[in-house]
């Protein structure tokens, strides 16, 4: 065994080392608060190192593989996690979380390791391993506020739903193995799959994965879990967990299932329309900002499917590009929510009335993030959406694009409701002026810079496009 080869697994190894270090720190350091900067800086280092000394290749007989594209995906996720960590800092310092600080980081990193394995998987069992590793600690994190009923409920719902869905997914995987005799992606990709059994298996598999991405009709857990979990976990779920699942879905559909492309494009077509519409319709009525953002992210996932349905390399590129933008936009919004929730405990949209007068900068960041989600230029979200639609139009799905843009207009409506609350609605007792801590500020600055400049750097998109492949 050539140990130099393990550099291929660099991301996972570094994360594992970080987890070990944190376990040791937990045991040795008494002032638990000091763990926070340690963890954040370690992860920051990890993120930075992720851009260098990368190599592509396969390990363990093909069970594990990476490529430049996969490394890009992992780096994008790292950036997102880093921002989430920054946003969590203040909340973790609260007295009720005192004993659980290192657990937070350890569990979080464990899920990230799982997601990394999922993305890098070269065969189904490795994939499933990564999936479970990503999900189970997640449930613990969701139930983090152990004395809060909603949090505990969310945790239980997540673990049970996840178990249910991965059961079905495993069934699908086993059907694949049963029919074609292999679980390796390379091999499966070369087999022409045109039997009804394969379609059945595909549907089972896709439903399990759709569960992670919160696509309709597999999304019902989303709202309750997002609402009950602590804000920072919610942002992690909505961005990283979803993002990882999107990445893996794209890769798998374009590699293993490329022979079934006519089948799954139709499946995606239906699910896309359902997801966008249902997500939007539910978002309109929400009062709780976390639930609101939950449904908004469901709708966004529907838009991402448009990129997938454009089965070319352009399609994959737009998906990855949009994911990056979506990370910044959503984390911007969640960042503001997190700050407000930490300092005032308020989570209803009505409480945001008149926010501009007491907290102008926070309101602006929120507005920019929401406009990015809505797709208004010159903010990056516009570019992301536009390219997704271009990818779908390339394959001639004009009616789908029409439905999508109409949905985008509907989504603008509910984003404007929040903007209206902050800027236009009058409030005698708005949320008091908040002086946020440096970590949160830094996180928000990164998000704002991100959503402003990503759109203007064509080279970034070109780089992504260069790495992408299509069918």
């Amino acid at each position, binding site marked *: 065994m050539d140990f130099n080869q393990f550099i291929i697994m660099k991301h996972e190894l570094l994360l594992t080392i970080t987890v070990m270090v944190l376990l040791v720190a937990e045991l040795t350091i008494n002032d638990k608060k000091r763990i926070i900067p340690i963890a954040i800086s370690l992860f920051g280092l990890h993120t930075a190192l992720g851009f260098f000394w990368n190599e592509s290749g396969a390990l363990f007989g093909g069970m594990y593989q990476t490529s430049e594209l996969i490394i890009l995906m992992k780096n994008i996720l790292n950036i997102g996690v880093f921002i989430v960590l920054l946003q969590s800092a203040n909340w973790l310092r609260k007295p009720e979380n005192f004993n659980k600080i290192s657990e937070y980081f350890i569990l979080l990193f464990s899920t990230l390791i799982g997601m990394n394995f999922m993305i890098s998987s070269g065969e189904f069992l490795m994939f499933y391993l990564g999936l479970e590793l990503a999900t189970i600690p997640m449930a613990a994190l969701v139930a983090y506020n152990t004395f809060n009923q909603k949090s505990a409920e969310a945790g239980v719902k997540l673990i049970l739903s996840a178990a249910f869905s991965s059961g079905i997914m495993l069934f699908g995987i086993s059907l694949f193995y049963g029919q074609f005799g292999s679980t390796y992606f390379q091999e499966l990709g070369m087999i022409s799959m045109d039997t009804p059994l394969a379609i059945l298996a595909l*549907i089972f598999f896709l439903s399990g994965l759709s*569960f992670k991405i919160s696509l309709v*009709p597999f999304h019902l857990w989303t709202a309750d879990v997002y609402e009950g979990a602590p804000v920072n976990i919610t942002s992690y779920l909505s961005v990283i967990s979803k993002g990882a699942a999107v990445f893996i879905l794209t890769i798998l559909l374009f590699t293993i299932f490329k022979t079934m492309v006519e089948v799954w494009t139709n499946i995606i077509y*239906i699910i896309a329309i359902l997801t966008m519409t249902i997500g939007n319709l539910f978002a*309109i009525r929400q009062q709780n900002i976390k639930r609101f953002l939950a449904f908004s992210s469901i709708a966004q996932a529907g838009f991402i499917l448009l990129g997938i349905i454009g089965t070319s390399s352009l399609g994959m590129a737009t998906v990855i590009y949009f994911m990056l933008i979506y990370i910044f936009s959503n984390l911007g919004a969640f960042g503001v929510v997190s700050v407000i929730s930490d300092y005032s405990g308020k989570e209803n949209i009505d409480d945001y009335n008149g926010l501009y007068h007491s907290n102008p900068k926070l309101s602006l960041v929120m507005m920019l993030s929401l406009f990015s989600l809505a797709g208004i230029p010159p903010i990056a979200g516009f570019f992301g959406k536009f390219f997704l639609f271009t990818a779908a139009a390339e394959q001639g799905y004009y009616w789908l694009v029409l439905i999508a843009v109409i949905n985008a207009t509907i989504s603008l409506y509910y984003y404007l409701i929040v903007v209206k609350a902050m800027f236009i609605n009058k409030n005698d007792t708005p949320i008091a002026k908040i002086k946020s801590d440096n970590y949160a500020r830094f996180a928000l600055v990164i998000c704002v810079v991100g959503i402003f400049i990503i759109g203007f750097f064509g080279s970034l998109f070109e780089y992504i496009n260069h790495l992408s492949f299509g069918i």
Partner: protein
Amino acid sequence: MEGPTPVSALIHAATMVVAGVFLIARLFPIFAIVAPNALEVVAVIGGFSSIFAAVIACTQTDIKRILAFSTMSQIGYMMLALGVSGYGAEAGLGFMASMFHLFTHAMFKALLFLGAGAIIHAIHTNNLSEMGNLRKYMPITHITFLIACLAISGIPPFAGFFSKDEILVAAYNHNQIYFWVEWIVAGLTAFYMFRLYFGIFWGKEKKYEHTPHDAPFSMTFPLIFLAIASAIVGFIPFSNFVTSDGLPFDIQMHWEIALPSIGIAIFGIIVAFVFYKKESDLPNRAVASFGSFYKYALNKFYFDELYLFVAKKVIFKRFSSPIAWFDRHIIDATMDGVATITNYIALKIKGLQSGQLQQYASVFVSGVLLLIVIFIYLISV
């Protein structure tokens, strides 16, 4: 004519009102050569206007209104003249006559309006019944006004005679009916103008606020100037200058047309003299004998009311208001409706998210089954 007098004198006598006549004259080659039927329409409208206005003028009591309808009647003459005209040399007599009459009319009508202005300035009323015997007080105004009345009635040697005569000749040459109609109008013109004249300058003197007197020289000078003009411009050989094809031709005096026209004018003047020079009951008896026809004429045959009716009751009420209503309640409501429907659907499907884990699982499974049914059984791969 509600405007200030100099405004009336300028635009309502000489310039703006004749714009329509000038338009047809300017485009005359098109009318005469390409669309002679259109010219016939012009003639009919001109003839109708002239008699219509003349009848109304006989009944009015506001001196400026009388002059306004007089203008309308004279323009009817001009239109008619264009309408009966042909193109080129003698056939284009009507054209030349129309322009000639436009020219002379400007002189005496402006004079009449300015004179009316001087009168109104002196006694502060427009109403004919409040005037009388002003010749004692305003001699210059009186003489110039008289000259203008004679001119407009078509009495030689004043300007109006020559131009009106040419028009009558042209009308006679085209179609005798036009001639007879205009002949009657000539009589009516003389009648109502001298009704006006006698009513202002003769008759019983009314109570005036303060002694009227002639206007200052700045105002009487134009009157004198225009009076002289009204007297002499008839002698201009107009056909040397303005003709339908630009080439001069000669005109002659047609005494067989001129004499009857002078005759009926004098007849009209005499009737007016009898009725109005002194206070008399004759006008009232004449009015009574006309009965309701008089009433219609007095009310200008209700044309104003008709237009107002069309504007307010038809266009405003039947077109604009429904449109405004339609815009707000149908089109706007549709757009609002789209929003309302979306909200309603959102409300109704709220129940799909029940909060119950069991329901989530069953929806999950149903989704899977539905996809299976669609993609394996309904769509053959």
